[in-house]
């Protein structure tokens, strides 16, 4: 056992760190660190930088234009990016659809779509969730009926993150309503969002922000060539993608960064004449969180290292998802708590770039309470923590 990174891994980390220091624009990093709203252009700027370095498609093999990284390298890269204040990579095309096409797409699909994902010519959105389906994908109702060399698609998708920026939608549709099992008879279609009958409606979340959308599909004509893989086998591809989505779900880098933020906020807040960070109860809450995070980092590395040996991430990734979301939620909870009365003032204009009014309370108080509420989502989406527990119970514990 050796818990240290190899010299090669260490060199990789140094390389990433140096590149970020040189290339990541300061104003962009400042927006990310300050919790400002990011716009479409911010993401495209970041993608372009990564593209120029060959690091945009982190989960793709080199031959497809990917970075060809080991799991440990992906982990190191994520950690460095979070620490530097880089935006996230928009995952829908690069980390979700891309791997599915590489594994299951036709040569035509690969040749057509992969370069367009890499070049940001297409912005993909995910059409999985439906109102009334929740974590139960097998009960989905959006239908695709074959009509000559088209499918006619009708239905409604929800929780479509950044769907208002997207020009393409990959979408699960029911193609065989009479299939023996409900998860059979589902197909994986690629839909042009400019098609007649596609309508995107914003969902405002409880923090007052617009990030997710409903997508209404009414008699949308989709060329049959846009079917990925085989008809009625969409569930297989969807599961593959969900496994992918959980890689890195622990969010260790994010939480380490957030813990550092928490410590700074708690040190700056005064409590009974001393910094809040010295209050025995608050300090104990932070220390428990830090211990949980230390342990989770090791746990994550163990799973990452096992993946490097070719072991597919199994139910362990469900455990990491649960613990990762617990740690993220506890961090934003403590951040909120640390602010005391200053968690209350809500000045949404200060999340905009260029705002230079006077904040109420500490400089960075602004987005903290809303982030706490926003962060409730992480234990719900991507397969709720209850679904993850069901998976672990069945596949790891044999119950």
């Amino acid at each position, binding site marked *: 056992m050796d818990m240290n990174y190899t010299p090669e891994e260490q060199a990789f980390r140094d390389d990433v760190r140096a590149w970020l220091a040189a290339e990541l624009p300061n104003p962009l990093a400042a927006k990310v660190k300050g919790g400002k709203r990011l716009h479409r252009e911010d993401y495209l700027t970041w993608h372009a930088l990564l593209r120029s370095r060959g690091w945009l498609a982190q989960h793709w093999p080199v031959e497809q234009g990917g970075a060809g990284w080991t799991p440990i390298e992906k982990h190191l890269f994520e950690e460095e990016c979070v620490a530097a204040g880089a935006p996230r990579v928009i995952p829908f095309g690069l980390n979700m659809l891309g791997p599915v096409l590489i594994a299951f797409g036709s040569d035509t699909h690969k040749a057509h779509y992969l370069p367009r994902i890499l070049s940001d010519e297409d912005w993909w959105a995910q059409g999985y969730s439906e109102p009334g389906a929740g974590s139960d994908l097998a*009960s989905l109702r959006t239908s695709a009926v074959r009509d000559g060399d088209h499918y006619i698609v009708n239905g409604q998708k929800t929780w479509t993150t950044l769907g208002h920026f997207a020009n393409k939608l990959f979408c699960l549709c029911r193609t065989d309503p009479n299939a023996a099992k409900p998860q059979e008879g589902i197909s994986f279609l690629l839909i042009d969002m400019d098609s007649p009958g596609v309508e995107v409606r914003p969902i405002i979340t*409880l923090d007052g922000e617009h990030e997710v959308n409903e997508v209404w599909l009414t008699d949308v004509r989709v060329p049959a060539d846009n079917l990925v893989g085989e008809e009625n086998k969409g569930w297989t591809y969807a599961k593959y993608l969900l496994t992918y989505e959980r890689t890195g779900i622990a969010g260790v880098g994010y939480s380490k960064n957030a813990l550092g933020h928490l410590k700074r906020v708690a040190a700056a807040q005064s409590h009974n004449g001393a910094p809040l960070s010295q209050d025995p109860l608050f300090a104990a809450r932070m220390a428990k969180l830090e211990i949980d995070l230390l342990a989770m980092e090791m746990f994550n590395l163990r799973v990452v290292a096992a993946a490097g040996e070719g072991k597919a991430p199994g139910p362990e990734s469900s455990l990491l998802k649960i613990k990762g979301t617990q740690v993220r939620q506890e961090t934003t909870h403590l951040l909120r708590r640390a602010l005391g009365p200053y*968690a209350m003032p809500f*000045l949404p204009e200060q999340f905009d770039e260029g705002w230079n009014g006077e904040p109420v309370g500490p400089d960075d108080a602004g987005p903290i309470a809303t982030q706490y509420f926003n962060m409730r989502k992480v234990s719900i989406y991507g397969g709720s923590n209850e679904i993850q527990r069901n998976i672990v119970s069945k596949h790891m514990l044999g119950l």
Partner: protein
Amino acid sequence: MDFTLSEERRMLLETTDRYIRDRYPIETRQANVQREEGFNRDTWKELADLGLVGALLPPEAGGFGGAGEDLAVVFEALARGAVVEPFLASGVLGAWPLARAGGHTSVLEQVIAGEALIAFAHGEPQGRYGPSYVAATAASNGEGGWSWTINGRKTVVLNGDTADWLIVSARVSGHTDEEEGLSLFLVPAGMAERRGYDSVEGGRAAEVILSDVRLPAENLLGESGAAYPLIEETLARGALALSAEALGLMEVCKDMTLEYLKTRKQFGRPLGAFQALQHRMVDMALEIEQARSSVMLAAGRLEGERIERERTVSAAKHLAGRVGRLVAEEAIQLHGGVAMTWEYALAHFAKRLVMIDHLLGDEDHHLQRFMAFSRMQEASS
């Protein structure tokens, strides 16, 4: 021992419940929040006319209630509508010091009638939840016929932007965190510089700056330098009111979640048929019963002697924070995505429930306060 409500309080409860059911659906609440003042003056007047402000004050101050149980009944009932009108700011924190100090009866009358607003300008930057933390000063130099000159900065003053009057705490002597040397003043709000803003869960607050605010002698409330007991009493009433409000919010969150679990199906069964969720609902219901008990206990002790009052109020506010977070987070989680949307009412109840922990002392603050007063009690027995 008798845990039934008196006839008067039962009527108060029914009146409030009926008003909220008929006239204060969530859409009205959200529309009221969107107004520039953060609430609706007409609604406020209607609620005052129903006697809901008067119920918070004793007969000697022109009200017809004012006991701990009155506060508990009114605030729990109002919570079922997530009412944003300034009951806490004006009816409790603002009116109580005035009611206890005596005088200024016309101001009180207007407050009870819903025609004037008072806000309690007490908390300060760096003060966090410390009840005696006051750096603002009051000098009695009597310049130009004025008796007092006030200087200082008050922070997150609830409804401070629209109040007509401010109750301002200021220090005439002593160190910043001392209990001795505090005075309370009634300040016409226009004399202060105010910067209003929205609160994250609805409602409004303000930063308030007092720069050489000059006041006549009669605007001092009570004896100079001896205001701490009244401040503490006011904060205790506020904390009880908030604990009762939290309780009402918990009940709404629980009821909405139960309803959702019974109707929403997944994997072919209602969500409520899943035992893991059932047991979590039971744990939630159990903790809510505990919170309810603590509110009843604190309500019954509010007018008793100081140590037992502070101890039981802190127990209630501690549980309001601890159980409130559990209930809010579980309600959202058990709802799944829909509770993440602005459009779905639960989100607003849950947000208010969480943010109550940031008003007048959080779970840890009140745990530590409970410990301190328990030690006092043990030392004196």
